[in-house]
């Protein structure tokens, strides 16, 4: 079910987490907002390692909000790992940064990010962002990794395509 999937936020600054949670709540997002504190934890969560293997407590997210500058593996590291991991690489990712450095933007997109957003400074902008995530990514957008049969068929088609090359 869509609403069971959380929105995972990888962010080291507790203020940014608090403010985003508030914005999501005000926007009326029903999905829970889960949080990890750094890149390493993000990878463990997504990979279901250690305590994160309990998927009832730590559900696989619908979308990943990924801070760029984090300790212990930054956003680019997580993105690189994610896009290189079978079965997980299709997760939609929105990267966040305090500034729009052209080389950061290009690198993120080269690595396969879905969106790059400068962290909004004020609550109005943040609320707007939360509403967009809710109405686009979580409503309009059809999420991947929902249907087991669909996934099996897709993987099979991909194998055929590879073999035919």
């Amino acid at each position, binding site marked *: 079910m869509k609403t069971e999937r959380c929105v995972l936020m990888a962010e080291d600054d507790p*203020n*940014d987490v608090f*403010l985003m949670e508030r914005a999501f709540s005000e926007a009326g997002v029903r999905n829970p907002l889960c949080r990890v504190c750094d890149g390493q934890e993000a990878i463990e969560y997504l990979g279901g390692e250690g305590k994160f293997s309990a998927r009832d407590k730590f559900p696989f997210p619908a979308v990943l909000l990924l801070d760029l500058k984090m300790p212990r593996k930054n956003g680019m590291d997580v993105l690189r790992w994610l896009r290189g991991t079978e079965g997980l690489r299709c997760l939609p990712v929105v990267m966040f940064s305090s*500034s729009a*450095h*052209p080389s950061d933007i290009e690198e993120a997109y080269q690595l396969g990010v879905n969106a790059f957003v400068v*962290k909004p*400074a*004020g*609550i109005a902008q943040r609320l707007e962002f939360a509403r967009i995530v809710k109405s686009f990514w979580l409503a309009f957008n059809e999420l991947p990794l929902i249907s087991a049969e669909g996934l099996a068929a897709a993987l099979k088609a991909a194998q055929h395509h590879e073999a035919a090359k």
Partner: protein
Amino acid sequence: MSGDQDQSRALLAAIVQNSDDAIISKNLDGIINTWNEGAERIFGYTPDEIVGKPITTLIPPELQEQEVEILARLRRGERLVHFETIRVSKDGRQIPVSLTISPIKDNQGRVIGASKIARDITERKLAEKNLADAREQLGSYAMNLERMIQERTQTLKKTVDELEAFSYSLSHDMRAPLRSIQSFVEIVLGDCGEKIGTEGTILLQRAINAAQRMDVLISDLLTFTRLSRAPVTIKLVDMEKLIRGIIRERAEFQEPHADIKLEPPLAPVQGNETSLTQCITNLLDNAVKFVAPGVAPRVRIYSERRDDGVRVWFEDNGIGIDADARPRLFQMFQRAHSESYPGTGIGLAIVRKAVERMNGEVGVEPGKGQGSRFWFELPPVSS
């Protein structure tokens, strides 16, 4: 008659005898016949000691074959002029000399011997060596200096790089706490507005405005630092297309907010699109911002071909710039107007930096009547 001849012979003999250079004569077997004072002084032998001895006495062992060749050439009637070589004195010293050897002929024109003038060139040789040494030292100093300059330039570059990276990193990182300040104050205002009352609301709003201004400052600083560090690729830019695009991007640059017009044709320039976009946007932002209250901003953009470039003019109807503010206008944090017109003081520094990175120049003139005329000049497109 013979008295005159004797007199002139005596004179010639005296000239030879008293000469500073060694003047020696020998026969074709290489035996020394005459030996002047100069020879005695240079080689140390008295005439008694050396006349009748072979000339090879004066030649160092390793150069003995020279005499064979010299005699051969003399027999052919050849002269040797300023031949530089080494001879040996009585006390065994090696003396650098310059030799001029001429054949002596009898009345029938047969070569019967040779006259040899040897000039002691020890001092000249020493001077030459000192000059060569000095040149070598100079060369090695120059190389050392070059190397030192290179090293220092590298260190300087590294320091500048580090400073710019530091500045960029700091600016970027300052945004996080600023976000918190602005957002949390906004939350308090939103949630507790009634409890705080009108006065408190105004104060908190001023705090929010201050935080927003700081964020714009940081954003400008980031832009400026980025412009300084990013590599800039220069190529042909269609100015008309670029400027029309910039105007289209922003509602503030269009009717009814502003009247901004190009006067075609605008000559293409050698530049960088990103830098030019930044530059022109800032100039237009200023033109639109710095007008008297109630006046609609009006800008005319045109280009002028000059000797070494293309100059693009931005003529506005704004409040103008004082003559004394003009020199420092394009420096960082210079604001020519009071708080009534918001600004970071970095906008024009960004324009200047962008133009400089494209090998151009920037400037401002007072407008005809009122306002200002900003310009930047870029290298023309080479045909």
